């Protein structure tokens, strides 16, 4: 301290951090313009058309809703076993197919669906997600938990590929209705199309409770000439996400199993001594994570209207970034991170460049790890040796 007072920090050293920050920002702007980061143009476009910002915020919130629910699956599992469930994004992808087939079956391969179809689709999708994730945990991860961490990660990665491949091959069943055009029971498989990897369209949810005369834009109830657009799908997605986050929060805080989960997350050995069946609680966490992925899958399908076997990677990266950003193991943190990522990607799609959105999300992930690896709401105590 004394030394610091006697010899003041030289001027060059004091300005070094400032200079460094300026230099980094300059380089990012220099290289980023190729990826659509042109602040001048962005500011001008925003001034020219302010409504579009609000519109993109709505889109971003809807995206955030989906990302939140997938991120919850990552963050819960990470919180309890301290390891990424690599198969999670593929479980999500598979459940979009479950939702797709259920909805197609319910509307008998029509292209339009009433809202109740989407709501009913939550049940099989969540059940399938929970079942797949639970089975993956039971038969792929459980016996490896005592091994080195990388062993579990590699097994998870392997399961991810297996599930991804199943998702790809589900598409082959789209050829079945062509072979038996007279069989009514398999007509709904037509929705899978003729190409395995091509995007499959969901039936569009465009009516509230199958009543006619319901507008596509909810805001038309208030103002018939509204330029802003909020669709029923937007509302469904956002409301579902809020309900699920609160329900999960209540579950973890108040129920016996939720308390057991928190106990296992804190100290598995002590929890086991208190009579908690650690294996069962961990399996339950995976099941709940998978069921949430199933719910997110229906939301994704209703909102985006398409799915394919490759959607897992992007959604997975977004959700994982959200989970890390919010502080891994933290439910509110996941929601907060998801809102940030959702807004970032919708604004990037509009103002920066949709081709580079994934790259910007990835940049965010790296920056978070550089600046605050524990996340916004994370604490140092969450990290155990």
């Amino acid at each position, binding site marked *: 301290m004394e030394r610091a007072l006697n010899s003041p920090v030289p001027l060059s050293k004091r300005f070094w951090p400032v200079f460094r920050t300026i230099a980094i920002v300059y380089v990012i702007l220099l290289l980023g*313009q190729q990826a659509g980061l042109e602040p001048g143009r962005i500011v001008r476009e925003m001034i020219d058309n302010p409504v579009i910002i609000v519109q993109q915020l709505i889109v971003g919130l809807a995206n955030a809703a989906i990302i939140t629910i997938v991120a919850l699956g990552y963050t819960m599992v990470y919180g309890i076993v301290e390891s990424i469930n690599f198969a999670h994004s593929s479980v999500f992808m598979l459940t979009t197919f479950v939702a797709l087939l259920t909805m197609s079956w319910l509307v008998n391969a029509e292209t339009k669906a009433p809202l109740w179809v989407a709501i009913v689709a939550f049940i099989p999708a969540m059940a399938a997600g929970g079942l797949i994730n639970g089975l993956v945990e039971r038969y792929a991860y459980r016996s490896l938990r005592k091994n080195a961490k*990388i062993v579990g990660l*590699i097994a998870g990665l392997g399961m991810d590929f297996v599930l991804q491949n199943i998702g790809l091959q589900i598409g082959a069943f789209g050829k079945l209705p*062509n*072979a038996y055009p007279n069989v009514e029971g398999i007509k709904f498989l037509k929705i899978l199309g003729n190409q395995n990897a091509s995007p499959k369209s969901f039936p569009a949810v465009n009516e509230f409770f199958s009543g006619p005369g319901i507008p596509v834009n909810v805001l038309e109830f208030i103002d018939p000439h509204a330029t802003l657009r909020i669709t029923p799908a937007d509302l469904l997605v956002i409301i579902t996400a809020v309900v699920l986050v609160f329900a999960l929060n209540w579950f973890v805080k108040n129920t016996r199993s939720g308390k057991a989960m928190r106990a296992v997350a804190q100290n598995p050995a002590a929890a086991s001594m208190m009579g908690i069946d650690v294996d069962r609680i961990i399996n339950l966490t995976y099941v709940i994570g998978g069921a949430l992925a199933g719910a997110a899958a229906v939301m994704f399908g209703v909102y985006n209207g398409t799915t394919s076997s490759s959607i897992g990677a992007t959604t997975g990266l977004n959700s994982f970034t959200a989970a890390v950003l919010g502080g891994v193991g933290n439910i509110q943190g996941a929601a907060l991170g998801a809102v940030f990522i959702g807004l970032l990607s919708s604004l990037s799609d509009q103002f920066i460049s949709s081709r580079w959105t994934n790259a910007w999300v990835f940049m965010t992930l790296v920056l978070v790890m550089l600046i605050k690896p524990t996340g916004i709401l994370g604490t140092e105590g969450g990290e155990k040796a």
Partner: protein
Amino acid sequence: MKQKLLNNTEAIAIGFMAVLALVTGGWNTIVCAVIAGLLIGLSANQNRDGIIRAGVLGAIASIITAIMGYIFNSWVSTLPGVDNQAPDHLTAYPLILAVVIGTITSLVVAWIHSIHEEARRKQAFLIFMVVCAVIFPFFDQCPTLAWNGPISIANPTVGCTTSKALLWVNAVIVTMIFALQALGLNIVAGYAGLLDLGYVAFFAIGAYTMGFLNSDHLVAQDTFLKTQFGFWLVVWGSAAAAAFFGLLLGAPTLPLRGDYLAIVTLGFGEIIPIAAKNLAEVRIFEPISLFINQLFSKADAQSLDRMQNAEAFLKNTLCLIGCDPTRPFDFTAGTKGISPISPPVFGNILGIPKIYAFVNGDYIPWYFLALVLLAGSAFFIFRLRDSRVGRAWVSMREDELAANAMGIDIVRTKLLAFIIGAMFSGFAGAFYASYVSFIEPGSFAFDISVTVLAMVILGGTGNITGVILGAFITRVVDLVVLERLKQLINGITEKVFFSGIDNPALVQFVQSIADATAYKVMLFGLILVVMMKVRPQGLIPAETAAQKRKA
């Protein structure tokens, strides 16, 4: 203890090679018999009885392989849709030769294996492998040879056509490129215990560096580059570029939790192909003048050719790269791909005249080049493992805490492993680019990372021989077995099950469900899961320090 009839290695060798012979047939039967003999010889006991047993087993294995080859020749190759590489499919020569050569191989290998003095045994093995590797491409040159007549000893390659030949040599060259990558990933995953899921990114960086500096792509655009640098120089540049990106990626993430690195590398692996795809029209301005200009004018800097007042905009904005309003700078050529990339040339530098130039499509010289590079890399890594850094890696893998207590800087040592791994991938990428002479973003997809990881996990993390073996098994399954199985299943379904049914849509459905190549990713995934559950150390586990002390 009662000896089992077959041990695991022998059973796997015979079973795998029999299936391989069944789906490839023809002259490939010989290759299958040799590999079966090799594996049987390697697992024999180190005494006289062992040699005899290996000989008998080798003969049995070769006969089984030959029978399978015969089934291919007489039945499988007649199925519709099966790609028949062997027009001489009914001659008995390949099958007789398979039995003879397979048996001899197992005897010779078992004999070498029984040499007690370790140094001499290793030497003998090395000589044997070198002889095999050198003979192999010349042997493989004749899969289409019409050996119906008497074999001419004086001129054995008479009638050889190279057009359809070299089914294996091409596959083996690509396999060696993959093995080179696997060696690098082995340092990352096997020694440092890091999960790198974007390994293909470094491969792509290496390949693109080769594409930029050793093709006409940038030279033709009249930019800073006036001439091609040549393979031998750029190879080092590729390795350095990959290592630089490895440092850039590893330095911030390595001090964090290990599984974060997996996600970051995964993301990086996705980003690099996106960048390669989208950097075909590069235009870079000085940011401050761009900001001011864009704020006040309706200018989208990336689409100047569609803009009204492009000239005025360009005059007011300081442009750095791609300033021609009609034609931006084409950096990566996008999905079009960079082609042709020049092959290596011996000589033709510093006044030395051109001695020899490689030609794309002439496989044999490439085979030897790849062989030399792979052998050199393997030797380098062997030496590296015994060096100070290598010992640090091994001790870190066995007990990180103890290694740290002994004064090893864990983060720096891991970072070094990560960078060296990236370097090898870049090196392999450079060779790959020059070999295929054409690169595009699609050839650096995620499944390459998966394949390489499966190679390392299958062969044995931390073991160089194991990793090379894993590379060969994985690659042969990927390139040959799955493709042939698909043809076989399609042929059988068409000829046997659907011969009387007239429903093309149903046939299409069954064929796309039973398409073996479509299950590649699942197969690799299962390899990862099953290996982790059953044998996490791999087929040939690495020697631990404790075992070394005991020996």
